[in-house]
């Protein structure tokens, strides 16, 4: 597989959200607005890229039996780094993402890519993979966030498109998250099939 393909793979073909259905909690939990979705996506991308890189570097030193715990520690380290930096420099975004930042640790995408890709490939390819997957994830979250924010409160990235009072509040709330993602995936499947 050439490098571009590795990168593009995560963006489209194996998009973690729309086709692999990984990391559903943040996908649904933080996408009440496009901005939150993007923020979460980028935070995850950072962790993905860094952990993929480090794991690809050290994979040969890690005995098989402790592979998973070792990966988890590495990932958790980067998550904590993100957590602290965000708290320091982007406090309001941190406040709205809340619990979901530490939960990046258990996001199946991160561990999944570590297992499936980084532990078998060289650092450069792993970075590309992490970047592709991360951006694919960010894209999906931003898209879902935009749809929900638009339908729910008439805005995209907090820019008012139509008056808020016309919005369907339910899309900002939990049921709307499920419904919006469900129909989004149905549409994407249909587009893919076509």
């Amino acid at each position, binding site marked *: 597989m050439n490098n571009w393909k590795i990168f593009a793979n995560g963006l489209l073909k194996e998009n973690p959200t729309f086709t692999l259905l990984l990391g559903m909690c943040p996908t649904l939990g933080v996408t009440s607005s496009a901005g939150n979705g993007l923020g979460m996506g980028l935070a995850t991308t950072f962790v993905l890229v860094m952990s993929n890189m480090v794991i690809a570097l050290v994979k040969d030193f890690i005995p098989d039996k402790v592979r998973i715990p070792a990966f988890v520690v590495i990932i958790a380290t980067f998550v904590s780094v993100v957590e602290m930096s965000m708290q320091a420099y982007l406090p309001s975004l941190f406040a709205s993402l809340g619990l979901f930042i530490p939960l990046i640790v258990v996001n199946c995408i991160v561990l999944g890519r570590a297992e499936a890709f980084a532990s078998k490939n060289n650092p450069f390819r792993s970075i590309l993979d992490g970047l592709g997957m991360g951006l694919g994830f960010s894209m999906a979250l931003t898209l879902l966030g935009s749809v929900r924010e638009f339908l729910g409160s008439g805005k995209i990235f907090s820019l008012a498109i139509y008056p808020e009072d016309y*919005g*369907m*509040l*339910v*899309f900002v709330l939990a*049921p709307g998250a499920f419904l919006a993602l469900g129909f989004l995936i149905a549409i994407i499947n249909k587009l893919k099939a076509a």
Partner: protein
Amino acid sequence: MNKLTVSPSPHVHSGDSVKKNMYGVIIALMPALLASLWFFGVGALVVTLTSVAACLLFEFLIQKYLLNRAPSILDGSAIITGLLLAFNLPSNLPIALIIIGAAVSIGIGKMAFGGLGNNPFNPALVGRVFLLISFPVQMTSWPLPIASRMSYVDALTGATPLAVLKEGVKSGQSMAELTEKIPSSINLFLGNMGGSLGEVAAIALIIGLAYMLIRRIITWHIPVSVIATVLIFTGILHLVDPQQYVSPLFHLLTGGLLLGAIFMATDYVTSPMSHPGMIVFGVGIGVITVLIRVFGAYPEGVSFAILIMNAFTPLINKYIKPKAFGEVAKPVKA
């Protein structure tokens, strides 16, 4: 001789059909429709017509263009969904919202699952709750009956008896003070109160129930168990503390209880299949309704209660079976 037809037995059929049942329900809904036209006039007419027309239209469009099936909009089920959606809306609800509600009912509530018979949740209620949560302001302004017969969105509004009660209890008024503000029982029975279109006239709904029972469109199990549970539960609360909890009769006659118990909990598709299961279902609806009305944030809970029990229906079907023949074999003389 013609070629003979060959098929497995049985070779006769009762002649019953989906259409007959559905139009039976529509007929049973007519008294309530007339009552709401009487009380809410123009508004009721606009809301009902818009809702039914929109439901039919969405059903047609989705069947034809998304599912590529022969449209079957005249089987009556979409008309019922339209009517019942309208019956669950205030009569001053603006047109765009009604259309959104119909789209959600039919599109998400029914067609996403493949249409009639497949949906796990009651479509009309899916639409209604979607609207309630999305547009709480518009969905909770109730036109006054009779007074606002000639107006639509600009109708005079007031609170429903249940909302008056909930607000009152929350702000610490005594039950005696509150009873003054609430219409008398006879007015409640006739439907002279604020509320959704179809939930106002108890008497009209009961006529509908009688009609459906006589024509055997539904069985008694669900309506009776819902109503009995609500009466018993609120009765106990009332006996414990009459100052805090209103009488069971009030609960019975207000809000969507009768409408829900008679027409919406009984929806074939979303209710259990066995008689014991139906009773469990009904009791569940009753209990959740009272919990929400008395302890929850909403003054009214029937819609949510039915949807929640819809979710449990598959489990009820799986674990509560009809009484099987030979299950309780009588002891045989040795």
